[in-house]
């Protein structure tokens, strides 16, 4: 009799275990679309027999285990960090490329316009219309230089603003991770897998933003460092990043615990934006400034050898830049020339019909006087366009590569941790059948007990 009751207990244990299996399947199906969710598996264990006279005591639930592969998750975070780096650069550069324009429709067209205007002036150096056209084209070129410089400066400011936003988000995530660490450590045996899932999502986003390193401690807390090893989260404590404007550029400097780590953040969205703000865009600015400085200098040097429409020695055509830095932003036609086109030089002798200077200025189009005497104006502009274009093409290619690798890693991560509805359906059927079998077994044992009881009652 006691054996039959033990069988009843065994059947009840089995039904309980299969019900938990059904619960686990239900949980997995419910979270099929939850970001960061790692599928759960019910780990069952056999309850061994207490003596040689019975087969065993049934089954027990050992654990509900989250299926995670830490190696893949670490790799995925690193790859997502790289993808975010190139993505951030690509976004910043793509908005810039529209303002550069296609060949024959950008600053090169304004350069051609100025040279064409001097060529037309050379055809009739006494024509007031031709002189006015030279001034108009010079002004148009100056505005193009100014606009390009402003777009580069604007792109830097945009990157700075985006970095500021990223710093705020990093601080929020660090606080969240520290808080979740605290919950995990102080769980006292309560299941923490759901908290780990949430922490995983926060860590992934953090990696996208700043390319962090994560070390999981024995107590379950995750320590997070940024850059080459600056602690961001240690257990339940989060350190805050701060961003303060620097002088004279007004661009933000990122510090943690008073230490400047701006140049140490080399991955993630922030790394990409910092590289864009502090290296890529300033490089473009310097090249554009050098171009503007050299162009104005060479143009003025030739212009001042001539005579204006009044027969007087000519002055500068463009305002001579004081320095290379800022030359594009300050590029402007000389105010005197802008107000009186008779001050444009066309003659080399002072004779009103002499057009040698106008001709020479038009011929400057084909003269290699820029980039240290190696490039014409169009070639110097081409070098600038090539640099920006190839940087964007490289960023596009890198972004594609990182996205593909991240996608493959995401699939790998899903193969370990993702929820498959087909698989869950199979488990659902399996637990359902097992539950039904256990219930039938329970009924059978119960029936045997009833039979015994009826024998006793007779």
């Amino acid at each position: 009799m006691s054996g039959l009751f033990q069988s009843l207990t065994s059947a009840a244990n089995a039904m309980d275990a299969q019900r938990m299996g059904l619960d686990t399947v239900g949980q997995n199906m419910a979270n099929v679309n939850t970001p960061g969710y790692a599928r759960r598996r019910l780990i069952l264990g056999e309850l061994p027999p207490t003596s040689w006279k019975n087969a065993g005591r049934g089954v027990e639930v050992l654990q509900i285990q989250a299926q995670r592969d830490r190696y893949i998750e670490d790799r995925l975070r690193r790859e997502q960090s790289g993808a975010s780096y190139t993505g951030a650069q690509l976004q910043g550069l793509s908005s810039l490329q529209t303002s550069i324009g296609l060949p024959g429709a950008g600053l090169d067209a304004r350069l051609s316009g100025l040279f064409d205007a001097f060529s037309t002036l050379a055809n009739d150096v006494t024509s007031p219309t031709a002189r006015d056209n030279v001034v108009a084209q010079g002004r148009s070129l100056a505005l193009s230089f100014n606009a390009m410089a402003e777009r580069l400066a604007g792109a830097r400011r945009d990157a700075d603003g985006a970095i500021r936003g990223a710093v705020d988000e990093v601080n929020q995530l660090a606080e969240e991770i520290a808080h979740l660490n605290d919950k995990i450590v102080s769980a006292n045996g309560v299941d923490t897998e759901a908290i780990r899932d949430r922490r995983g999502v926060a860590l992934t986003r953090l990696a996208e933003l700043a390319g962090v390193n994560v070390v999981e401690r024995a107590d379950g807390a995750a320590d997070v460092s940024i850059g080459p090893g600056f602690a961001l989260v240690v257990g339940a404590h989060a350190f805050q990043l701060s961003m303060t404007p620097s002088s004279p550029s007004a661009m933000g400097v990122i510090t943690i615990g008073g230490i400047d780590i701006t140049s140490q953040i080399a991955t993630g969205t922030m790394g990409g934006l910092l590289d864009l703000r502090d290296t890529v865009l300033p490089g473009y600015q310097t090249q554009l400034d050098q171009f503007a400085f050299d162009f104005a200098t060479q143009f003025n040097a030739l212009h001042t050898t001539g005579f204006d429409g009044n027969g007087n020695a000519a002055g500068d055509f463009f305002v001579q830049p004081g320095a290379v830095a800022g030359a594009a932003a300050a590029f402007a036609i000389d105010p005197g020339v802008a107000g009186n086109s008779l001050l444009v030089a066309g003659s080399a002798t002072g004779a009103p019909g002499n057009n040698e200077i106008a001709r020479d200025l038009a011929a400057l189009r084909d003269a290699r006087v820029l980039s240290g005497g190696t490039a014409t104006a169009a070639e110097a502009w081409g070098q600038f366009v090539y640099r920006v274009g190839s940087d964007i093409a490289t960023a596009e290619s890198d972004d594609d590569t990182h996205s593909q690798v991240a996608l493959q890693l995401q699939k790998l991560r899903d193969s370990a941790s993702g929820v498959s509805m087909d698989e869950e359906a199979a488990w659902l059927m399996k637990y359902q059948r097992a539950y039904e079998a256990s219930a039938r077994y329970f009924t059978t044992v119960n029936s045997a007990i009833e039979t015994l009881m009826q024998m006793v009652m007779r």
Partner: protein
Amino acid sequence: MRVVHDVIRDGLFAINSTLEQMAEARQQVTTGRRINAISDDPAAVVQAVGEHATMATLDAYTSTANAAAARLAAADTVLTGFINKISGAITTAAAARGSMSTPESRAAYAQQIRAYRESLVGDINAKFGNNYLFSGSEVTTAAYAQSGGAWTYQGDAAPVQLEVENGRLVSVSLDGRALAQGSDTTDLFTALDDLATAIDNNDQPAIQAGMDALDRAFDRAVTVQGRVGIDERGTDEATARLSALRLAAEGRRSNLEDANLAEAIAKMNQADVSYRAALGAVSSAERLSLLDYLK
């Protein structure tokens, strides 16, 4: 390996990839351009910048050549009239030199010579637009003016030159003194005035000297017109060369920038098929699962 299909991630990735290809091909077809952003092919973009600059240079030379051709044609026309008038003056002087002339006829010949002089002064002070053609680089000043009874050249010897192609200069404003005086001690107009006076006075040696001066002026004018003709022909040749070079540069630019439409349309169709296939694959992958078979 477990395969987990995520319709949002995997499905949209596939759909977006084919959609990007289709958008790129469609843009090439609709714009007719292979390069729609500088990152499409940076090396080709740099070459295209160079080709645009080359075309702009050629266009500027062509424009200059056209301007030069117009001015040379004007100068040529003026010189033709100039030469004809000198010939007429020579003929008139020859008639006046004959022994049959009477004082009345000589007065008429002298008057005719003065009319030629007047007309030749008008020719040498001809303008193209606002510029005098025969004042050298002093294009705003008439070539010859009478001052105190004497004719004075007010221009200079420096011609105005236009560059009609790289390194080729043509003179579009000429040295009037070289035309009207050359190496003579007096200019053509003074010589004509002297000739008219000589005819009035029936001074045969002076008439002969005047006719000799006209012969030399005729030679000078023919020489100058010949030079103008050479420049006109050179300008025409330059224009033809510039046109050929422009065509070649345009071809190179087109190769760099323009889309091969047949190829782009084929790509667009291919991308369209891929896009439909991706849509079909994604929808069929989501259509069935084991859950559909559980009873």
